[in-house]
């Protein structure tokens, strides 16, 4: 199909033709087109269907404020819904389809909704779907959800990837129109490190669509020259196709760059930039708004400025015969430009009196003018055919250019909760300059200044102010000469005399009647009307409609705009894809993971891994003949208890503590005493929070004079290190103590089981005696292994068996585990994972993360005697609070099902026999459960009120989620070797 509506001129490159498809039909456009301009060039005016009534809709704007012309971009089996055809830069092979219609755009069966419009007014959900109550979840909500929405998400995974970056500058200029370019020139020539962002793929803003001169040049030529100069400045970075969508603290701005509009693009499709700046000039321009009149949503009705854009910038004839309906001079400029391009302007209908527009009327002498008149009705269905005026005239036209004034784009000024103020002169909200986000200045049309020469002057003033604040002299540049027509307009929202529905928010199908009804029903707050009617809540966020809605509310309540108030804006300024927000990483790489030193070995041993924070830990090592993970875990437990097992415990936090005050420092941090710990000995330690609750547990090893190694749980490694640093730097800076994490430096393996000593003796160098008498339980030392490799040996046991933890610099970790594995064959060595580790610690009754849950005290865990009364330490005083020493507190005990075949569940709540399962009867809860191959039964640890007194008794473990109600026996938490003889052998 030829581009039948293409005319001469414009900023498109006719040497680069581009083919595209819309709704299955092939068309062509040119480089420099948007999808919308290319559709219009090909005579396509019907582009979409509305949200609720499925009314036919055409292209209404030429920028990101577009409410109507949303399409689905398609690439093979993927698609992106709700793409604004007015911002998509045309590319070869683009495929798009209309959305929210079936079976076709032209004949949409759901347009029948329009016939039921009287039933579907504002708030009809709340009024209609109230009875019967049970229908809401089962019938109404599913139906509404199915009917709601515009485009459809693709069922397949997003094939694109995204990126994220950080940029820094002295001055961020938001908007690349006249004001932005002028500010950029001033800042750039003075050497400021400047970033200039523009949402469009071309800089120039409104100047691209206007027909005026700057410095004797056509305005788009002035734009081209200015951009060329800025591009040559090394300290100025131009970022086209980039929209700032969020203002955050400390002058941080988030912007999204559309690197490609193509789905499944070669590189990243979109990118989020976090821009940190010292100063900001908001030069975001203004958005034209429309007027609500009967059937003003018909395809062919377009904003007057958009019509100028399509004519002047894109060289597209949007109509054969146009009527201009305006409340200000903007509509007249459109009439002038269309007329110059040979497009017939059948009428200018201005709501103002003749004397109010006579100045601009002088420039449009050939066009019929209807002063103090209004359009009350649009005729036509899929396209405008004619209009009826208030004076009774009916005029045949196929398009209407409408202008109801301009809304300064002040969204970014409001994101820190600042409220804009009403300016009657321009009939628009402007930013309250006394309350702008830190470092921000507003320039040009965003401030309500519309004459080009005043815009340039204001931009220069704002840039000079930035220069001054940065210690620079003001620029000596001359302001370019430009159009000085001041804005003249009259506040006007809607045609009251119209009998048809008059649309305010096109995308959400909100009419003037809906808004008036909401007010009549008692919704007086703008915020409430917005939510009741959904005004301004669609993907365009009411850029063209919100202010009109506020105006109609004010009229209905017979109040001023100031009295009525306004909504404010939140991020994002434009829709941002979730994929872009998630950043460059997806799938397994969505977040960074940490691998243990033995990871490659574990992979070779076919370990199954489990995420433990960021760590990937070996969970268990299945053998080929094992059908269930429980079989593997049972084998690993039994092998360790009977022979010897090895597991990687490098993930435990390890902190090197040195200094002459190291022991005294640890005495303050741990609730038990460390200063009495002899050299080459270890001690179990507990840290309390200030409120007396247990923060973490671990071991303290006294390795050398003034040198300790403390360990933390894997989960709390960072938290504990941070806590200790806080104590060192802030609480006791007078202490001579140095801390540094050595978690990553030392790979550490636990070697546990009755044969562990024999195995170790094959590894460590001969001059170390690790016999029980020389190296007893809780001993530690610096040793060497394998002919002089430095190592540290700790005789610690989490499993309850005779056990050691052997640490080496991580560079030897891989070789060491393989070496031990080889030597260990003689001793039936078995690698074990976190599951077996967990089983053995439950069998021993050791508290771990499930029990250190932020609610338990040392006393609750049976460790109350560890809180020393002989010294002060963090949390020790508050741990004696009445509530924390109450005998009715939950105390750690063991539980077993009375029937060993029954499986109890972690999280089950404990109740007495025959008592009802109510919160008042709740005695506690099970924290950890495992199957114990040593007990041949499931066993668990539980926190039970006055638990010690229940030992030996029977209670019930109830899990309502799993329909479990199991009789249990309460036991000591030490199921295995309660006297601890095995670990001391």
């Amino acid at each position, binding site marked *: 199909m030829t581009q039948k509506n293409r005319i001469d001129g414009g900023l498109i490159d006719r040497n680069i033709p581009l083919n595209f498809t819309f709704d299955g039909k092939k068309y062509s456009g040119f480089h420099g087109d948007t999808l919308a301009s290319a559709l219009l060039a090909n005579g396509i005016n019907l582009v979409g269907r509305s949200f609720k009534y499925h009314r036919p809709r055409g292209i209404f704007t030429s920028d990101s404020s577009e409410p109507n012309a949303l399409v689905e971009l398609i690439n093979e089996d993927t698609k992106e819904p709700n793409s604004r055809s007015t911002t998509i830069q045309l590319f070869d092979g683009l495929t798009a389809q209309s959305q929210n219609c079936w079976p076709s755009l032209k004949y949409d069966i759901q347009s029948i909704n329009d016939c039921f419009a009287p039933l579907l007014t504002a708030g009809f959900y709340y009024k209609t779907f109230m009875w019967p109550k049970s229908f809401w979840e089962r019938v109404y909500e599913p139906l509404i959800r199915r009917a709601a929405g515009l485009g459809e998400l693709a069922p397949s995974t997003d094939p694109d*990837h995204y*990126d*994220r*970056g*950080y*940029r*820094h500058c002295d001055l961020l200029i938001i908007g690349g129109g006249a004001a932005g370019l002028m500010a950029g020139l001033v800042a750039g020539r003075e050497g400021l*490190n400047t970033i200039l962002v523009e949402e469009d793929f071309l800089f120039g803003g409104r100047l691209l669509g206007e027909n005026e001169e700057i410095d004797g040049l056509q305005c788009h030529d002035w734009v081209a020259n200015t951009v060329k100069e800025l591009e040559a400045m090394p300290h100025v970075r131009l970022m086209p196709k980039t929209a700032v969508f969020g203002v955050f603290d400390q002058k941080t701005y988030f912007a999204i760059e559309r690197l490609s509009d193509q789905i499944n693009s070669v*590189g*990243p499709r979109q990118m989020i930039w*976090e821009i*940190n700046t010292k100063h900001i000039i908001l030069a975001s321009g203004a958005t034209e708004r429309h007027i609500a009149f009967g059937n003003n949503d018909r395809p062919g009705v377009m904003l007057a400025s958009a019509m100028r854009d399509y004519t002047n910038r894109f060289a597209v004839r949007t109509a054969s015969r146009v009527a201009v309906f305006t409340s200000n001079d903007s509509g007249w400029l459109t009439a002038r430009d269309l007329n110059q391009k040979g497009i017939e302007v059948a009428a200018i209908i201005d709501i103002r009196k003749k004397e109010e527009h006579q100045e601009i009327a002088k420039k449009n002498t050939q066009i019929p003018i209807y002063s103090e008149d209004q359009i009350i009705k649009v005729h036509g269905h899929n396209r405008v055919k004619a209009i009826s005026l208030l004076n009774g005239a009916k005029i045949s036209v196929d398009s209407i250019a409408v202008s109801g004034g301009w809304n300064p784009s002040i969204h970014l000024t409001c994101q820190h909760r600042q409220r804009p103020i009403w300016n009657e002169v321009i009939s628009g909200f402007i930013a309250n300059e006394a309350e702008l986000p830190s470092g921000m200045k507003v320039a040009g049309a965003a401030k309500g200044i519309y004459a080009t020469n005043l815009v340039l002057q204001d931009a220069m003033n704002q840039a000079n102010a930035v220069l001054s604040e940065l210690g620079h002299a003001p620029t000596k540049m001359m302001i370019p000469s430009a159009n000085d027509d001041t804005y003249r307009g009259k506040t006007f929202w809607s045609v009251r005399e119209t009998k048809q529905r008059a649309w305010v928010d096109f995308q959400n199908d909100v009419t003037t009647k809906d808004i008036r009804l909401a007010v009549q029903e008692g919704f007086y707050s703008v915020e409430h009307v917005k939510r009741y009617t959904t005004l301004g809540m669609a993907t365009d966020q009411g850029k063209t409609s919100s202010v009109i809605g506020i105006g109609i509310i004010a009229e209905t309540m017979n109040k001023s705009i100031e009295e009525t108030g306004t909504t404010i804006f939140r991020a994002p300024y434009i829709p941002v894809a979730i994929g872009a927000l998630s950043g*460059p*990483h997806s799938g397994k*790489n969505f*977040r*960074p*993971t*940490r*691998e*243990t030193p033995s990871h490659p070995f574990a992979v070779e041993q076919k370990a199954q891994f489990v995420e433990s924070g*960021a760590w990937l830990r070996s969970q268990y090592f299945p053998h080929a003949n094992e059908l269930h993970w429980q079989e593997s875990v049972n084998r690993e437990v039994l092998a360790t208890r009977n022979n010897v097992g090895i597991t990687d415990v490098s993930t435990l936090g390890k902190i*090197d503590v*040195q*200094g*002459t*005050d190291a022991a005294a420092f640890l005495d303050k941090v741990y609730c038990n005493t460390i200063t009495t710990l002899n050299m080459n000995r270890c001690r179990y330690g507990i840290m309390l929070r200030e409120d007396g609750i247990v923060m973490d547990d671990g071991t303290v090893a006294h390795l050398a004079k*003034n*040198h300790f190694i403390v360990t933390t749980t894997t989960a709390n490694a960072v938290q504990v290190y941070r806590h200790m640093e806080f104590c060192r*730097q802030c609480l006791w800076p*007078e*202490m*001579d*103590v*140095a801390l*540094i*994490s*050595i*978690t*990553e*430096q*030392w*790979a550490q393996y636990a070697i546990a089981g009755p044969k562990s000593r024999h195995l170790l003796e094959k590894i460590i*160098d001969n001059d170390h005696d690790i016999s029980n008498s020389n190296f007893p339980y809780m001993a530690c030392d*610096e040793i*060497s*292994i*394998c*002919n*002089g*490799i*430095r190592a540290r040996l700790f005789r610690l046991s989490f499993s309850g068996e005779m056990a050691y933890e052997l640490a080496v*610099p*991580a*560079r*030897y970790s*891989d*070789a*060491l585990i393989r*070496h031990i594995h080889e030597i260990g064959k003689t001793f039936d060595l078995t690698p074990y994972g976190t599951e077996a580790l967990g089983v053995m610690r439950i069998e021993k009754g050791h508290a771990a993360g499930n029990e250190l849950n932020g609610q338990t005290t040392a006393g609750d865990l049976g460790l109350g005697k560890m809180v020393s009364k002989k010294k002060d330490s963090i949390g020790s005083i508050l741990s004696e609070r009445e509530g924390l020493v109450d005998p009715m507190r939950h105390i750690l005990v063991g539980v077993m099902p009375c029937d060993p075949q029954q499986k109890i569940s972690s999280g089950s709540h404990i109740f007495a026999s025959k008592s009802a399962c109510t919160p008042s009867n709740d005695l506690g809860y099970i924290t950890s459960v495992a199957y114990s191959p040593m007990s041949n039964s499931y066993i668990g640890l539980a926190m039970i009120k006055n638990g010690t007194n229940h030992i030996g008794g029977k209670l019930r473990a109830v899990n309502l989620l799993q329909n479990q109600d199991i009789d249990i026996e309460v036991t000591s938490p030490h199921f295995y070797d309660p006297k601890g003889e095995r670990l001391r052998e």
Partner: protein
Amino acid sequence: MIPKGSGYVNKEKLNSALSLDHLNLQWPALSITQSSFKEICSINASLDKQLDLNERFKEEYGISLPAPGKMVNHSTGSVFWVSPSQWFVTSNECNPYFDQLLTKKFNDVSTVTLQTDAWISIKIEGPASLDVLERLIKIDLSERNFPSGSATRTGCSHMTIFIQKPHQEDCFIILGARSYTKSLVHTITQATENILGKKE
């Protein structure tokens, strides 16, 4: 038994291997390789001994300990600031007892901890280095804000790193935690591929 002082002789049964051996990714405008230093130790000035440590360090290495955010080279490596009263000293010579060597020199004014195995070091070099790093690191790495001789702790895709700007054009060194090796290399590679395309 543990060798005394720095008299380290390699007669071990076990091979040492860092998690980042043989990293060498090349694009025309960028190379990502393993950086050269072999050992790292933290050195912490004892309470009120910072000036003494600085004097002793000057005597030993001929340079002062660097100020916050800075690094300096010495004859066999470099030293950079890490946190208040704490620096990392690097050595280009392999010696698993490097900490004992430093302890011997500065024992009465500092504490020393071996850190070599905790870190991987990645050199990013080439005209595209800043373009890549601005996708990874929040701080302003431009020459005016982060000139040669700068070194600081920061984050990279949720991982803690140190970044250094040695006295070499278009060159940066990232030190990341050993356990994060794969994730860090992946992150840097992906950022590079997003700009320069897939690796040749």
